[in-house]
């Protein structure tokens, strides 16, 4: 379904294969090194890691334990603290439902933030329906919550606080260490869970230094396979959670179900590669992101970066192009896979709740595009993307009645619009 070259606004330069992928917050390709590590575990070492009485089981168990060590090294924890799940959605569900259930005698209050992933927000909504009190904090316009703000929401009944490390839409990095310290100062028994999905492998990470209690991970956001994630559960002092699934009592009773050994091996290898590459990859991605941003802003007026640029993942750029609706821009950028906060790209017809939580006006939220740069993006791809974005935005602005009014000096707020 590759579009014909005849309709391309900007021809692709040599070395740039189209369509190109710049949506690395949604998912990432499996790194070839990861795939290579996985392959023997499908047909050769296919044993059940729970089989204790033969060599097939031992090989599988050894591979799983090795992967636990690789993942623990990525997050700064202990191998015995890794509980494998089907992905981060399950890990987040397990953390929040499991902890509120286990510690219900200690309280029935949960604190989280409006810009969290739906896996967190919807889990909290269910807990709320089941009688748990939920406080959802609003971040500042730059996307950040303050440690004081979080601590102020904590009471003697607060069981869990859940604050993500880096946001999936705007890439904003919360001051997690300070937040944990402030929470513990207010109530030492309150647990802190963090969705570290977008941060893992992208910025230095140390759950011990952060003094977290629970952390959720996903392999496919860090060049590992889809269908595998993990919940890191602190051992000292021991954090307890009730399981969601009943069964064979795998993962020390916290998550029953036969372990998908090939996926776990891939997850482990992905963690190892991320640790090794991080010192060079983070500055490379930051340079590419800055090149993209400056390339766009040097040629287009009325563009706005959403969220703090300073406290942000190196590969993230979320930017609004005023007077150009996001989905129509995505259509022009069909050769570059990115995503938009426009309502038209969602089933709900509501613009991004993350941008709205930041106080970004609906008219600007509709014009936002998220670029997610990753391991396999190149400078040539960024330069092509700049050309394509600039050309497309200029073309769509020529088509936009709002741009025309803006050029004529008409204040768009002075118009009597007809919402529909």
């Amino acid at each position, binding site marked *: 379904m590759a579009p014909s070259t005849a309709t391309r606004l900007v021809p692709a330069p040599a070395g740039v294969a189209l369509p190109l992928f710049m949506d690395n917050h949604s998912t990432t390709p499996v790194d070839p090194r990861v795939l290579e590590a996985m392959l023997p575990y499908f047909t050769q070492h296919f044993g059940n890691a729970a089989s204790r009485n033969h060599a097939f089981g031992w090989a599988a168990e050894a591979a799983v334990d090795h992967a636990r060590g690789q993942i623990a090294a990525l997050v700064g924890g202990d191998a015995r603290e890794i509980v494998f799940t089907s992905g981060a959605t399950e890990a987040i569900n397990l953390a929040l439902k499991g902890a509120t259930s286990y510690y219900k005698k200690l309280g029935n209050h949960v604190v989280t933030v409006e810009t969290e992933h739906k896996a967190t927000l919807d889990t909290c909504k269910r807990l709320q329906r089941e009688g748990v009190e939920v406080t959802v904090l609003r971040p500042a316009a730059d996307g950040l919550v303050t440690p004081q703000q979080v601590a102020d929401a904590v009471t003697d009944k607060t069981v869990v606080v859940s604050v993500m490390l880096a946001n999936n839409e705007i890439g904003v990095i919360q001051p997690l260490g300070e937040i944990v310290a402030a929470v513990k100062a207010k109530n030492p028994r309150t647990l802190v869970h963090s969705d570290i999905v977008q941060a893992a492998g992208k910025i230095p990470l140390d759950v011990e230094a952060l003094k977290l209690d629970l952390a959720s991970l996903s392999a496919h956001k860090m060049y590992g396979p889809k269908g595998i994630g993990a919940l890191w559960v602190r051992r000292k002092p021991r954090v307890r959670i009730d399981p969601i699934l009943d069964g064979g009592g795998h993962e020390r009773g916290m998550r029953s179900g036969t372990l998908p050994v090939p996926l776990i091996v891939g997850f482990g290898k992905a963690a190892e590669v991320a640790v090794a590459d991080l010192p060079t990859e983070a500055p490379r991605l930051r340079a590419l992101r800055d090149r993209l941003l400056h390339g766009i802003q040097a040629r287009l007026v009325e563009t706005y970066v959403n969220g703090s640029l300073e406290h942000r993942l190196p590969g993230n750029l979320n930017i609004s192009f005023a007077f150009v609706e996001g989905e129509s821009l995505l259509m022009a950028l069909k050769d570059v896979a990115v995503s938009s906060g426009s*309502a038209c790209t969602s089933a709900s017809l509501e613009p991004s709740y993350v941008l709205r939580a930041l106080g970004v006006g609906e008219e600007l939220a509709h014009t936002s595009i998220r670029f997610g740069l990753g391991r396999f993006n190149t400078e040539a791809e960024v330069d092509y993307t700049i050309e394509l974005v600039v050309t497309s935005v200029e073309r769509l602005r020529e088509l936009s*009645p709002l741009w025309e009014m803006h050029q004529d000096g008409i204040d768009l707020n002075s118009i009597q619009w*007809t919402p529909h």
Partner: protein
Amino acid sequence: MAYSDKVIDHYENPRNVGSLGKDDDEVGTGLVGAPACGDVMKLQIRVKDGVIADAKFKTFGCGSAIASSSLATEMIKGMTLEQAAAIKNTQIVEELNLPPVKIHCSVLAEDAIKAAVEDYKKKHPGT
């Protein structure tokens, strides 16, 4: 979402993009929608001897909104005001193969035509 070939054609080669003089006596202007809803259409007609001699549009909105307004300007050229005002959004839905989630784009185009006709009639009471 997959777009129909006709939507892509109108999006890539929009017909009748531009503006007519808003204060021109022969021109009727319709401006519908809202920036906060993600779509705004401006549709203008130039009327000569009771017939729409020219039509122009500018649209802020998704590909289907741009295609709907582009198609609308094509449809109404040569029509009388009554014929134009009688156009139904379902004709646009059918022509562009719009999926259910995009039907509001066609409704907005119908509204834009009606608003332009109304504006012209306001300038010419009794027509």
